[in-house]
């Protein structure tokens, strides 16, 4: 593994049973995250996009072990996580912190802002006075005056202020990696811009690495260096932000980008690229999971699953599609030499 890889995830898998009937037997399986591999380099922002049910939030929860993976390995800063001789979960959670979408639900309503932020360091062995000092220090870094906010309760704050508190709580442990799960989706546009500016500043000043999860393609393009596109528990495409947005190779990524409202009244969308809703993640279609909605699907697409592979022209840009796979049997696939 190269030295600049901070986090490496291999073949991560998590299925949820769906129980029903009188005896609560397992009647179906949600393949929430199925064989997902990616890596995050030190200092970069990896954006994860996809629609609801694609597994992006489950992936985030697996990373910090809020959920246990059914299979797969996680390697952080060169140490494997959760195995004997590797990094333990407690240490992982000091170095990897998370910010959630719902700023209110992620704060304890009975704790003051200062206590909420100081709790983390005190669990990790910092004395209470020192922890409170650090809490006040980090509050001013996220743009909240500690003299005013330290003794407030979550209900006294606006949504934007609460999200700043959540960011402060994540940063007080001086993590290396911050997983941001839809951190600005619940905020008004004018407040969203404030929080995004803050995240950019903090990343630069504190030398952080981000995983930025969002359904908003504009925000992901603005924030990310590389982008990973998920569909029904699978990675369909990953690559540098410029090449994903300028030359998307997977039909799903193209459809997703085409679905963005235009912002130009003279160039409104005429025909939606996709019809219908995303399929139910319970018992997803065999083969390529996108083939049921794909305009280019052929017999091979339903028969076998295309691997996530780099094709000759793409370099760092990898796509999981039979059309780009030599010898896949798809009529658009390159001919094997």
């Amino acid at each position, binding site marked *: 593994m190269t030295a600049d890889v901070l986090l490496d995830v291999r073949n991560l898998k998590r299925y949820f049973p769906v129980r029903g009937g009188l005896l609560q037997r397992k009647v179906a399986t949600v393949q929430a995250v199925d064989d997902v591999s990616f890596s995050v380099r030190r200092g970069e922002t990896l954006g994860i996009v996809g629609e609801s049910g694609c597994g992006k939030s489950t992936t985030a929860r697996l990373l910090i072990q809020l959920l246990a993976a059914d299979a797969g390995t996680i390697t952080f800063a060169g140490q494997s996580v959760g195995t004997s001789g590797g990094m333990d979960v407690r240490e992982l959670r000091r170095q990897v912190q998370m910010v959630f979408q719902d700023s209110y639900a992620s704060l304890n309503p009975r704790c003051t802002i200062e206590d909420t932020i100081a709790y983390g360091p005190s669990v990790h062995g910092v004395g209470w006075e020192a922890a409170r000092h650090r809490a006040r220090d980090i509050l001013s870094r996220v743009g909240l005056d500690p003299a005013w906010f330290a003794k407030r309760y979550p209900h006294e704050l606006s949504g934007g202020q609460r999200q700043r508190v959540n960011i402060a709580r994540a940063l007080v442990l001086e993590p290396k990696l911050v997983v941001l799960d839809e951190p600005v989706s619940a905020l008004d546009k*004018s407040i969203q811009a404030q929080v995004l500016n803050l995240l950019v500043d903090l990343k630069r000043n504190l030398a952080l690495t981000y995983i930025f999860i969002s359904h908003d393609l504009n925000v992901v393009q603005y924030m990310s260096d590389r982008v990973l596109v998920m569909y029904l528990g699978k990675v369909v495409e990953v690559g540098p932000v410029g090449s994903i947005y300028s030359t998307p190779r997977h039909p799903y990524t193209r459809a997703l980008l085409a679905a963005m409202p235009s912002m130009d009244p003279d160039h409104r*969308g005429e025909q939606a690229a996709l019809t219908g809703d995303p399929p*139910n993640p319970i018992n997803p279609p065999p083969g390529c999971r996108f083939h049921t909605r794909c305009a280019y699907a052929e017999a091979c697409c339903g028969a076998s699953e295309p691997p996530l592979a780099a094709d000759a022209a793409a370099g760092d840009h990898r796509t999981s599609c039979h059309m780009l796979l030599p010898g896949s049997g798809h009529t658009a696939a390159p001919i094997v030499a």
Partner: protein
Amino acid sequence: MSDPPMPHRPAAASAGAVQPLVLCEGLEVRFVGREGIIHAVNSISFTLAAGEVLCILGESGSGKSVTLRAMMRLLPTHIASITGMVSIAGKNVMALDRRALEDLRGAEVAMIFQEPTSAFDPVFTIGAQIIETLKRHDAISDRGARARALELLEMVQIPSPARRLDNYPHELSGGMAQRAMIALALACRPRLLLADEPTTALDATVQIQILQLLRRLQHDLRMAMLFVTHDVGVAVEVSDRIAVMYAGRFVETGHVRNIIHHPQHPYTRGLLASTVQGAMRGRRLEAIPGSPANLAALPPGCAFAPRCPYVEPACTAAPPPEVWYDDTRMVRCIRAAAR
């Protein structure tokens, strides 16, 4: 913009002019609560012609949804006081008795919401609910109503519509339920559709389908639409005109092109500048400082003054007047008045 601004709205009904479908004059909504009086909607006036789409664009708490509900008199009367005049299809909505109001709702005016499953009754099938609406407003047989319901589901492009008529709301996916709600709303061919963030809860690939469906139906049925959203991109996709709302007031109105390409009010400019677009990558976002106005304690002057980069003493003294550039373009800012 070459014409000199006018201090007042141009004379609305000149001789021989057609009466607009919707005429709203000085609409105000106050909620009386424990924290005092909430000034949710503060003197809103607009007109909407038949077949026209006006989008109310604003952030949470700006009063855009309350405006729609006030127009349909859907707000609970014991806490909401509504003043002003709303006329739809020549009827004075505020003066209608209960029976006449029920005749208006569903037949002349219909409404769609963000959450389709809460607009349906969970214990009746989609078909039964559409048929009930049809029979309430039109003299139509059971067989005729069912045929019409099927036609409606086809119109909103629900796959295998005959089977879907007998589905319960929970059996439909999000996009499908939204289409069914549109079918229900359009059952009696309303002349005005009120849409309250109908695509906000949907995934991106479904949202664009619903927006294009609404645009096509609105055009084909020559239906006027009042569309409420917080999303500039959505507003651009559907509207002819946009009204930007802040703290219960329209701060700027105009044709969609003018609003997007030549925003005048500092709030509109701030809102557009802080709406993230991919092309802004690497540049710092021009965020609007501060938080949205508190509707329980509005300042005496311009409500945007505490966040405005161009604030001057006159802004905080009294609310700025509406400055009209032409029949549709209005900016409520003393800087516009001075130009």
